[in-house]
């Protein structure tokens, strides 16, 4: 007994201790450049003896900004243009100082630019550009014969093609909308001559493109910075100077090369970031390369963890709810309606709604999966009990048994196959939906799928999709087996 108490007290101190040096949590968005920058900051902090936790490829601006505000993450890479237009919805902020003035009320600050500007630009095949002597966008005015191929987003955006053509007075004979990845191929095949691109796209190097100078400064600046929470000043004052040591250090060419090393040459984000740090700071950080089996094992555990807990909780809550709905006419339609509405919320939206409530990681993902799993079980429990034939129920009550005994010995056992079918439906939906959990850093089979989408790697997508499908089949098979057992 004494031993148990002392162990308990010891663990309590241990917990408190751990809380004292909580790791610095870093996030990144769903595209390669952001993931690399996150790696760079995380590895640099680690090399300086600061414990970090890296939630990579979490999602879009909304998810990361909210996670930062909720202190779910402490740092993430962002672009000045995005902060001004999407987050603050302002215009005409010119300096980081004014930007930081506006970010102050949020408890957030930005570092100075890291050294590159990832904005829209126009690009051409460099031989064609040289042949025509083109260097800047203004030079295009005299060449209306060139074929323009733009991404649909660029054509539609207010600050895209519409205003660009006004400002530069461009009157090309032909403008087509097409997919961004196809645009590079079209350019290579010389079907189109001018495309829009991001100035740090890996493909610029690969295809040897000429980026035309924005000589009238039309495109807003998308300087990469780190956003961080100001409470880091008190919580971990060493962090900010280390982040700031990256300011001005990453040139456009360097970022393009890093993007290419990951996207085109298939190196891992971590290794590319480590090489950069090695070169720039002479720090060597240890990168453990996971094998496919390590990842598979980790993702399987992650997935089972999400599904197991959310489904388990759903069963515990949904069966009593279903029973209540079948017994209490007053709240019957309320319960069924409520869980029905939950089901109509798109899963992605539900995940995003969870962030302000529960943050990021596996807890909000489990909460969302839990809510999703309720309906089939509640509905089937309710139907299973309500559909018991009248003569059977009448005979049960006529025996003079109390309601609780009738529920336990008669109604639930008779409804059990129906309830089980509901649990099966929930489980199978749950296994599939849990892959979305990776969007808010919950791990599981969604992790390789997201990375695969980002890197355009079918192999990685399959690394998540195939086990997820197999797991769904196993779950289905397991319940089919139990069902068979019951009916035989």
């Amino acid at each position: 007994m004494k031993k148990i108490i002392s162990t308990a007290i010891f663990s309590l101190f241990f917990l408190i201790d751990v809380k004292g040096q909580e790791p610095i949590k870093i996030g990144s968005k769903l595209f390669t450049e952001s993931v690399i920058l996150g790696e760079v900051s995380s590895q640099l902090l680690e090399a300086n003896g600061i414990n970090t936790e890296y939630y990579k490829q979490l999602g879009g601006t909304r998810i990361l900004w909210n996670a930062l505000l909720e202190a779910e993450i402490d740092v993430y890479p962002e672009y000045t243009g995005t902060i001004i237009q999407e987050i603050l919805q302002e215009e005409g902020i010119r300096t980081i100082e004014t930007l930081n003035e506006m970010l102050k009320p949020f408890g957030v600050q930005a570092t100075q630019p890291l050294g590159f500007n990832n904005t829209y630009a126009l690009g051409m095949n460099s031989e064609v550009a040289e042949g025509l002597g083109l260097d800047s966008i203004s030079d295009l005015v005299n060449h209306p014969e060139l074929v323009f191929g733009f991404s649909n987003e660029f054509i539609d955006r207010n600050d895209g093609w519409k205003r660009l053509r006004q400002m530069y007075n461009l009157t090309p004979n032909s403008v087509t909308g097409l997919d961004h990845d196809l645009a590079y191929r079209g350019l290579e095949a010389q079907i189109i001559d001018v495309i829009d691109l991001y100035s740090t796209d890996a493909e610029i190097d690969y295809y040897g493109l000429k980026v035309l100078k924005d000589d009238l400064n039309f495109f807003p600046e998308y300087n990469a910075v780190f956003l961080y929470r100001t409470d880091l000043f008190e919580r971990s004052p060493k962090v900010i100077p280390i982040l700031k040591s990256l300011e001005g250090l990453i040139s456009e060419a360097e970022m393009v090369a890093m993007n290419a090393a990951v996207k085109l040459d298939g190196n891992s984000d971590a290794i590319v970031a480590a090489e950069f740090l090695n070169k720039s700071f002479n720090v060597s950080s240890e990168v453990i390369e996971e094998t496919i089996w390590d990842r598979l094992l980790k993702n399987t555990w992650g997935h089972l963890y999400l599904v197991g807990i959310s489904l388990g909780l759903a069963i515990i809550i949904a069966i009593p709810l279903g029973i209540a709905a079948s017994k209490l006419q007053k709240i019957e339609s309320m319960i069924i309606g409520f869980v029905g509405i939950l089901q109509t919320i798109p899963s992605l939206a539900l995940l995003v709604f969870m962030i302000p409530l529960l943050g990021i990681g596996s807890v909000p993902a489990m909460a969302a999966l839990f809510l999703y799993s309720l309906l089939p079980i509640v509905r089937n429990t309710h139907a299973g009990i309500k559909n018991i034939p009248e003569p059977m129920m009448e005979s049960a009550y006529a025996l003079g048994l109390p309601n609780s005994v009738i529920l336990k010995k008669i109604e639930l056992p008779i409804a059990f196959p129906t309830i089980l079918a509901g649990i099966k439906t929930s489980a199978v939906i749950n296994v599939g939906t849990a892959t979305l959990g990776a969007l808010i850093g919950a791990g599981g089979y969604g992790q390789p799928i997201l990375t695969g989408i980002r890197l355009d790697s079918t192999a990685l997508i399959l690394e998540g999709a195939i086990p997820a499908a197999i797991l769904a089949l196993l779950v289905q098979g397991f319940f089919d087996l139990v069902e068979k057992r019951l009916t035989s």
Partner: protein
Amino acid sequence: MDRVFYWYMLHYAMISVQNISKKYDEKEVLKGITLEIPKSKTVSLIGPSGCGKSTLLRIIMGLIPRDSGTVLIDGKELKDSNKLELRRRMGYVVQKGGLFPHLTAKENISLVTHYLEWEKAKINSRIEELLRLVRIDPVLLSKKPGNISGGQAQRISLMRALMLDPDIILLDEPLGSIDPLVRHELQSDLKEIFKTLNKTVLLVTHDLGEAAYLGDEIVLMREGEVAQQGAIHQILQNPASEFVQKFVSAQRSPLEGIK
């Protein structure tokens, strides 16, 4: 003194239904019905479809609420507070589908005794006793209702109803969906059983022949009211109304088929 006691025993109402009314939505199913079922008598309840026979049985069991009126079971008023206890003094058999499909016949029969925490030996000896009474093959006990024929299922249902040795047995068309040959056999057996047990029996049937064969008395109902109560010969000889007259002559004999 002895004579009075004897008279009392003969006429003591085991079930007394007083002024019961029941409405479903706007439809008046029972219209202030009053009825007494004497102790140790078998009474057949008969009447056109929808006249309220099943509703009356359900109200006597306390399975559905009544709008007004009183039910006395062995002199005790049926209330929410004592309905479980009183139900255990009444056995109830429905037309079909009353057995619980997930339990074996034996589990069906002994469910309530398990709840009352009877000892195993007591349960088994009671089942033995009833097996002989209702004359069924013990092999059936381990089967589930899905694998038991309709006639045998009704015997099992009767066993279940008799398990606690109730004073009263209520049967709602117990032979209503049994084919004629088996029904004939079951009618004889039921008559035998009722005679052996000497309990108060209220039995709903559609068939005047069956009502007369099994019942010491017949209650003929019409649209939520009692049209006539009495022995079969009284009803045949002195029909209380044109309706009773019509009802009793509406039965067809097979002989009519011979031209």
